[in-house]
């Protein structure tokens, strides 16, 4: 995947679509976890969600851009 993508002549970092994709994925994961009430096994849900998102985004970024 290219490092930068041109949208109508505007250069956008290639990480942006990955970021948006991860956001979407995160919403789905959130829905799933919320439906089965799994967050009650986590000490600090917001921290867990942020960490999970960081993991997802880092992983996807490394996979696609490395």
């Amino acid at each position, binding site marked *: 995947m290219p490092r930068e993508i041109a949208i109508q002549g505007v250069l956008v970092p290639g990480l942006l679509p990955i970021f948006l994709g991860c956001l979407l994925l995160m919403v789905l994961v959130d829905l799933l976890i919320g439906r089965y009430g799994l967050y009650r096994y986590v000490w600090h849900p917001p921290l867990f969600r*942020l960490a999970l998102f960081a993991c997802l985004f880092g992983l996807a970024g490394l996979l696609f851009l490395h």
Partner: protein
Amino acid sequence: MSVASMKTGRAARRWPVLAEASAGEGRAWLFVFKTLLALYLAAWLAMWLRLEQPATAMITVGIVMHPHSGMVQAKSFYRAIGTLCGSAFGLALLCVFPQQRVLFLLCMSLWVGLCAGGATLYRNFMAYGFVLAGYTAAIVALPAIGNPLGVFDSALMRVSEVMLGLLVAGVVSELVFPERLRLVLRQEARAHFAHFIDFVRGSTGGSIPRAEMEQAHLRFVRAAVQLENQRASVIFEDPEIRARSTRMRLLNQHNMAAATSFQSLHHLINRLQRERRDAEVAALIALYRPIGAALTTAPDELHDPAVLAPRLRECALGLPAREAELRAGLAPGRAQLAFDTGATVLKRFLDELCGYVEVELALRGRVQHGAVERVHFRRANDATGAMVAVLRTFLTMATLSAFWIASGWAFGVSAMLLATVFSGLLAAMPNPLASAFNMLAGYALGMLAGLFTAYVLLPGSDGFPMLVAATLPLLLIGPWLNAHPEFGNIGGGYAIGIVYILALKNPMVYDPAHAFNDAIAQLAGVALAAVSFVFVPRVTGSGWLRRRQFRRLREQVVEAASAPLDGLPWRFESESRDLFHQAIVHTRPGSRESRALLAWALAVHESGRALIELRQQLRAGRYPVEVREAVDRAVQAVARMYRRPDATQRQQAEGLARAAIEACAAAPALRPHLYQLLGALRDDESPLAGWMPAGEPARAT
């Protein structure tokens, strides 16, 4: 327990005031800590990312950090949308009118006005989105006006800075000692459930005085509207609530429907009691008693839906047999008709109560299975308040623009920018006029503090830790004031003022002449935004708007009589409650106006609901044309009466309702609803009583 905590415990018991104050102060300092953390983090990140103006990120943090920060994500969501819309609009505006300052400023003023109007229209966190849409458009487009070629880069920078500020504010308030609103919501929902069940159980005796019913109604409406407000915010912060969202809506709707049916039943029983028709009253109370018995369980299970749901279902199964038995004991004709009416309403109520308890039971389960019916809580927004806000903000901005153009003021940008921010913020406040002048004072103080920091404390410092050390003492006053509601909105003005005039940059630029000119322009902007509230006052909460809402509340019955039937029951229940709630919060409890509003709300609920049930019955069954026509005439007459209530309309509606009951002799399913309507028209405790012919005995139903 340690000695120290025992000591404080004892002290707390001895001086409850002290304990309360220290608890409040603790929360205030936590908020100060969070705000400062977010401010410095935003500044550091902005400098690290080499953004042009770290101050923009800091101001954004100042605007969005708020002590009621339970619902960070709801705010962030709307804010992000607002920012994107605003920046897109700002860019488009610059592209369309790069050299047309009059048109440019006119469009800009209109946009900011529309955003302020939107902020008043939506009372929840959507308001933030509108505030930011106006702010971002201004901050993207205005500074670039002198240099149209660099507009894209400048816009990109501003959007990045604003987004960074939003992100930091969101993450900090979400991660650092977050206030979990979910717990509050759950607690309130359970308390409401318990109240409602207690109220239903407590009235097994049969009659409730109208005054008590009014108070209960007020309580239930408040709870219904609040639960919906909280639900709409909490779904953003909590995935578990999000998974339960549809069910919670359904729960609220079942509750509202059950409350209306319950009231209708008691209005009927009260009326019969006043007419001394003791046989019917006794029969209806006997029919009602099993529900009270089903709700009376072991003391620790009184509010447990898992115990209540099967008991209520069992009770519902036994109802028809009991009804037939009791009905046989009454004289045919009038007595049986009154009893049938009561039984119909009671069955409806029991059905809705069962639904309510069962949904509550499902909600308390760990895992949410399957899908449920989607219902919506319809808001009854009034566009006039928003229109006034649009007009006011537009005038403010247009005045500033005209002055800017006419005087060739070099710092007009700052004035415009600040007017935008404060118009939006003020428009969403409950008491804007007082807030406006508090904010203005706060802003002036903040600027003085900022100038002192920037030109006395900062020049000697070197590096980020020193910058924090130099700015911290005066910066923390803002959030501290903000966390104390007794200071009004001084804190809000102070926090924005100090950050704005500090204008932290890397490397820092010191230019006293520029700073003082800027300060004067900013103050002018804030002042104009505040003064505009004197010239174009806010309509929300004014007597004019209350009378308007009152009329709209009555017209809910017209809606019930004429709107398409699909989804109408839900719409009617939520819209009429929302309207009532909006109007009643601005009246003094116990005042004549407040009592009139309550009385009308009860009448509207009873008649509206009866009309809807009647129309549904009419649609479901096969009836001869003359029956349909008679019923239709009665429905229209009732609607006319609620649109313009007076003695002749009421008389006419009553006559047509009687005629319809006569015409429905062969349609027993329709008669109870018509009888309910007729009773509501003749209720001598309802507000319609004033138009009843004097001297006529109340018992002529």
